[in-house]
């Protein structure tokens, strides 16, 4: 959590910046899917990219995570959870997709 003594104006600006960015990063993928403006694969890549960036935007502007003011223990917990999620999601998908291919389903 942000323990800085920044002025409320600054905090308000931070929330509004995050909100504007999140709105844009939501509108772009929805518009692409609605209009079919790009090929399917390109659209999927844009959806994934916009999602990752929007998660970072939320973490920074709404949850006030940053490398300087967030408590070290909290950051460690987040990094540890991220590694676990990466191993479990990545591992599950790897195994199941491989199985899928070998079974030729």
């Amino acid at each position, binding site marked *: 959590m942000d323990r800085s003594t920044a002025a409320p104006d600054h905090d308000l600006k931070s*929330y509004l910046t995050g909100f504007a960015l999140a709105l844009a990063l939501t509108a772009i993928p929805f518009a692409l899917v609605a209009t079919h403006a790009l090929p399917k694969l390109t659209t*999927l890549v844009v959806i994934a990219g916009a999602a990752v960036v929007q998660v970072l935007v939320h973490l920074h502007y709404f949850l006030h995570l940053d490398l300087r003011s967030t408590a070290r223990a909290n950051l460690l917990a987040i990094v540890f959870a991220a590694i676990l999620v990466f191993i479990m*999601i990545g591992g599950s998908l790897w195994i199941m997709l491989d199985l899928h291919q070998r079974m030729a389903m």
Partner: protein
Amino acid sequence: MSAEAYAASGQQAHDEPDVLAQREFGFWLYLMSDAIIFGLLFATYAVMASNTAGGPTGKTLFSLPNAFAETLLLLFSSITFGFATLATKSNDRVAALRWLTVTFLLGLGFVFLEIREFYGLVQLGAPPSRSGFLSAFFTLVGTHGLHVSFGLTWILIMAGQLIAKGLTAPVASRLLRLGLFWHFLDIVWIGIFSVVYLPGVL
């Protein structure tokens, strides 16, 4: 004030920030374990998404406008919760209550849209038991919706505490943790519309 009472109050004032920081850390641990649950539900959905068992697919079932409306409701509720947090920081109880109320209504709208969608799917002959795809879909999206419903209950409780107790240090600290929970749920929703609805409609 006796020396003892003075020491006791000094001790309390000294401990308080530490205790609040510990509670925040504990809450982060909870949120991260929740993130792991959602991560595995996402993995399950990704594996099951193509197993429609000859039943309806996401392309015929999902409504893009409905998903977009849900997304906007949650996003707006995130920013209004941000305003409630700012009001808490500047010790403005009335503004905090007002923004909590707005957040609650937006969240309620989200839950309403989701229940309506689920009900419509069951009516269309696409209940969770229809296929692996639908089981995974209802589990993932339903778990998120359940979290939002618990968040709504928590907002009501905190609004009650704001009215009854005022903006005391413990109440303010609980509000901050509720904020973490609420923003976290919006982050999970980014994953849901990017993994479930958008590729499903595409």
